[in-house]
């Protein structure tokens, strides 16, 4: 096993895990200026759903993934339509409070439903890996990276070339003008939040496959998504991929050079640095 080769690979793969978790968060933030503090709990809920489907019906998480995506899309769509839209045009503080509250409700609901016990989605391939030229490639992490790349491309194509995607971008750029052009803002927001919820669920299933989770695990996921989003830049489909890779690589290399105890110092130090030097993130657009 080549030490540094393996560590670089570890970092890239961890970047995939971090990035896929941040995809939804970044989309919701970029389009709606909505910082969804319940993001992590959404993901954990999806992981529980995948686990339940696996344990009770024997459906593999990758087979149930489309179903979970659709369920979360629908739930997110309705949530935005009925609840979040009521406060989203008020100041940002209101949506923060709302999603903060949603996070508490979700986390405690999950304790009631699933108990505080730790769970993981343990499929036959959850801990499998490919061996390539002396390098180990854990299958789930590799798939997370592939999914992240594919989803980023699809998201980009959708936002760039579809009619609905253009409506979403127009809304993100200038809400008032978009409304004057006949775009139904509440519908665009509902669609975006739905899409974000679906993507969050995908990230959650990957988290469940690669980690142990409990109802309390949502908080750190939200913080992680927050860091990745700021690093990569808000308002671009490639932000989570870039942010994830940068953070994953830096953490892997940093944890070996300086020791794993400094990982958080490195992460938040970098975050601070980016906020000072390039507040729009590595790939983010200038503030409009």
């Amino acid at each position, binding site marked *: 096993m080549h030490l540094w080769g393996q560590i670089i690979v570890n970092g890239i793969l961890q970047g995939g895990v971090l990035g896929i978790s941040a995809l939804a968060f970044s989309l919701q933030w970029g389009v709606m200026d909505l910082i969804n503090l319940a993001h992590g709990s959404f993901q954990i809920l999806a992981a529980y759903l995948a686990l339940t489907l696996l344990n009770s019906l024997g459906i593999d998480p990758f087979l149930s993934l489309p179903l979970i995506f659709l369920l979360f899309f629908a739930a997110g769509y309705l949530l935005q339509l009925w609840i979040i839209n009521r406060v989203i045009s008020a100041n940002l503080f209101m949506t923060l409070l709302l999603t903060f509250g949603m996070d508490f409700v979700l986390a405690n609901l999950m304790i009631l439903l699933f108990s505080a016990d730790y769970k993981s989605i343990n499929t036959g391939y959850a801990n499998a890996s490919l061996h390539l030229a002396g390098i180990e490639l854990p299958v789930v992490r590799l798939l997370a990276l592939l999914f992240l790349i594919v989803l980023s491309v699809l998201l980009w194509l959708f936002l760039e070339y579809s009619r609905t995607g253009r409506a979403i971008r127009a809304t993100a750029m200038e809400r008032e003008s978009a409304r004057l052009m006949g775009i139904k803002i509440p519908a665009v927001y509902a669609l975006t939040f739905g899409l974000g919820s679906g993507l969050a669920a995908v990230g959650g299933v990957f988290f469940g496959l690669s980690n142990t989770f409990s109802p309390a695990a949502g908080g750190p996921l939200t913080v992680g998504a927050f860091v990745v989003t700021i690093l990569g830049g808000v308002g671009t489909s490639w932000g989570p991929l870039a942010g994830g890779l940068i953070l994953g690589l830096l953490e892997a290399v940093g944890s070996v050079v300086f*020791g794993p105890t400094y990982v958080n110092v490195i992460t938040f130090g970098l975050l601070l640095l980016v906020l000072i030097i390039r507040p729009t993130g590595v790939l983010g657009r200038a503030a409009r």
Partner: protein
Amino acid sequence: MVRKSVKLTGLFMAVSLLLVAALAGCGSQGAKQNTSNASAADTITIGAPDAATGALANEGKLVHDGYTLWQDVVNKQGGLLVGGKRYKINLVFKDDQSKPDNDKSLTEQMITQDGIKLFLSPYASPNIFAASTVAESHKVPMIAAGGGAKKIFERGYKYIFSSYPYSGEYLGSVLDLLKGRGIKTVAFLHADDLFSQEADQGGEAYAKSHGFDVVYSAQYPSGATDLSSQLTQIAQKKADALIGTGHFEEAVQLVKQAKQMNVNFKAMAFTVGPTMPAFAQNLGKDAEGVLGASLWTPDLPYKDDVFGTAAQYAALYKQSFGTEPDYHAAMASAAAEMMGLAIQKAGSADPQKVRDALAGLGTVHLFDGSFTIEPNGSIKGLVLPVIQIQNGKAVTVWPAPFDKNIKDIPLPPWSKR
């Protein structure tokens, strides 16, 4: 320009809220209602802040159940016999949401508003550390179950006692076991909390003084989700054994990633993790052969008057709560039992008398073993067992004669499993 500043304000608020969320942990629920009827003359009320919600809710429940079992068993026997009269035990729990700061305010509140004068501790060393400062200032005794950090007992306090040995002693039995199995080089990985640091330092010191070669040692932040690069480094150092002192999730993650990275060890041992049934459930057959430092198992040959033998304790627990007890629950029951013994010895529930009785208990023999209460409130002399996961179950493999149960050390490589 206006819009930009609004956005920046929003960003600032988001960061602050996230920090609050991170500090708060997840899940919150108001303190449980005080159901005490402390005024009743034939009742002894004992308070316990506990982690019903938040990050420690899992272990918090075990401690809660351990205390509760003692209360129920004693009450079923007619109550605690003190000076010829039987008193019912009434435990009052209040949810600390796993946060040490809450333990301070809850303990204060229970002492000053609810008039509670005897305490069992919340779960986890930082929480005990916080709660015991308040108990000390009010001269109210507290018996700790759920944390053996040495720092708790190094403050010269007179009102804190414990049923736990020091965290630094947890790994001694594991290393004794490994020594007999030809393990020479060990790698240590530990989390950055109080308990893990002390357990690791104690373990590393013990390893070095017992002829092991410590080839790797590192601290990672609690809650780390990716330790693959550390495992890659450890593999390069060719360590025979991995010893992890952290939390449940990290122990599971280390086994998962060791397999993913195809890093083979002759033995893997953890302080927290393997003793909990969820460990084998989460890992399936990958958990086979993993060792766990434990404080108590139902197989141990000890007994007392309240619970009977260790096995009978396990049966009582299962009857009440539907699951097998792990050491968190048993050690909590033992702490509650110590409180009972002290009240009986004091002949009263007066906090000062109970404290003096605790300090003078000397060597006690309970269902979890025999141990001596030290002048600083900690205990010594408890023989710590080691468990190994075999066919999905935790089997006692240490001390002798249980060492005949050891299987598959050295562990087969991942490719041969």
